[in-house]
């Protein structure tokens, strides 16, 4: 009875889609709600029906107030700059290290690799106090350099080293061998042959690193205290400490959420596939 099977199938599909639509709405709702609520006047937020999504009176007053008390424009630019520049620095270090660890034969390279990978096990709070002391001693307190250095040389970049190594092992050696026989130096082999052939690995590590830098909170909060250099996450913390008006706080949250959603919508495919790839690092 093919007809019956067909009917059974549409029934299941209906259940599936209803479930998924409800679930998707639950996932998206807090975002939509915070963005829309940030345009509500404070009275409406406090006394109106919270289940009303759309502002009854539309106002940009919250945003005016937000930019008046803290330089949120500056915070956004800082966050965007760091989330792009730091991953580039991380990837340069990680890929060069992995190139040496996979392509150059030298004593101790396996021990080195294990030492790097083992650092992924260490909770970030263990190195917090010593690194804070180091940064102060090096006169790097309140500089972007402090943020660069710890991202480049702690566990999250150890993951990138690990990931690049797994990837480099899958690149056939024929190409580079020909270049090396022709007398091409290793550094050029790395930049001209290996890196251009590693785009998928670069994309994955870039996106994962972008995410982790964008989310970074405790470390920048501890080492940065100049408004000009603060990131969005840290700025939000100060906003929460000082501003009692919830509509303004929501405007702050919305400002930090909107750029990342735009980035996500543009690079959706890459975001998804890099998350999917990252799991296989552990294979």
């Amino acid at each position, binding site marked *: 009875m093919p007809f019956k099977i067909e009917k059974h199938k549409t029934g299941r599909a209906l259940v599936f889609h209803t479930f*998924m639509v409800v679930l998707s709405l639950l996932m998206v709702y807090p975002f939509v709600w915070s963005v829309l609520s940030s345009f509500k006047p404070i009275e409406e937020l406090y006394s109106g029906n919270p289940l009303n999504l759309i502002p009854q009176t539309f106002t940009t007053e919250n945003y005016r107030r937000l930019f008046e008390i803290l330089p949120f424009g500056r915070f956004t630019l800082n966050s965007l700059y760091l989330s792009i520049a730091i991953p580039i620095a991380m990837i340069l270090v990680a890929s060069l290290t992995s190139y040496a660890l996979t392509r150059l034969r030298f004593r101790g390279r396996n021990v080195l690799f294990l030492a790097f990978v083992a650092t992924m096990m260490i909770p970030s709070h263990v190195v917090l106090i010593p690194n804070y*002391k*180091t940064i102060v001693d090096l006169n790097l307190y309140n500089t972007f350099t402090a943020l660069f250095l710890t991202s480049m040389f702690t566990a999250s970049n150890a993951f990138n080293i690990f990931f690049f190594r797994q990837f480099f092992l899958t690149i056939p050696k024929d190409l580079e061998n020909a270049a090396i026989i022709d007398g091409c130096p290793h550094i050029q082999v790395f930049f001209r042959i290996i890196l251009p052939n590693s785009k998928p690995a670069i994309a994955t590590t870039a996106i994962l690193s972008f995410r982790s830098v964008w989310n970074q909170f405790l470390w920048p909060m501890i080492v940065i205290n100049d408004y000009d250099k603060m990131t969005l996450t840290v700025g939000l913390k100060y906003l929460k400490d000082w501003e009692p008006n919830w509509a303004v706080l929501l405007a702050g949250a919305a400002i930090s959420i909107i750029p990342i959603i735009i980035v996500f919508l543009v690079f959706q495919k890459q975001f998804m596939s890099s998350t999917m790839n990252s799991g296989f690092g552990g294979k």
Partner: protein
Amino acid sequence: MSLQAQEERLGWLYVSPALIGFMVFTFGSILRSLGYSFTEWDLLTAPRWIGLRNFAKIFQDGYFYQYMSNTFYFVILLVPTVLVASLMLAILINTRTKGITKAYRAALFLPSITSTVAISMVWLWIFNPSMGVLNNLLLAIGFDKVPQWLDSTVWSKPALLIMRIWQMSGYYMLMFLAGLQTIPETLYEASEVDGATRRQQFFRITIPMLSNIFFVVAILLVIEAFNMFESIFIMTGGGPLGSTSTIMYYIYEKGFSYYEMGYSSALAWIFFILILIVTLIQYRFRHEQAGE
């Protein structure tokens, strides 16, 4: 110079930036942290050696036990819930490939890419007992008593759990999805010919074929659950009455609110060893399974 010696030199040259950097900011810091844990140090005056006294104090510290049990509460409830939810979602979504499921996938993934600090501010308001969306929704659908969520010592932990499950499930769903897509379709076709039911297919094909990814997700999830920090910092500050404070939060508080750097370092080391033991148990478990 021989070619081999040249390669040897070049190898060390290329790893040197990472090696020097890690020496300073990771390997060196780990050892220094251990050193600090034997001292009393307020950051302003020089550290004073006090031997094992910090550790002795920790084991008599009532907060330590309270926060440790909070930490385990989160790990024990968060890990299995997210594991099952993300696996189920991945399986559900994997069976359909049409355009609309891509939209579901994106929606489920979205919470995991936004910063925890920003989204915690939003949830803080959602959980507001009188003006928040959640309680008003509960009242609207007929509940007459609603939880005080983050204001109550009973509901603060479940509230944080809800928020974290909401935020993390989509991310791990995607990892499982990657695993599911590597299972060859022919396995299912062959088993269907042999008369296998859906249930049998699930337990005999899907689960065993996913064991690698399952292991990776479990390890990552356990570490992430132990490391819960930003959401607590923004939403509760460890309260009310320490009901949501975790060891991670305590390490931060002791170090950067009370400037007890030695005590904080000792806490961090105890915590580190604990995570190490849990992860080693997971590896052990995995090896035993693989050995069968």
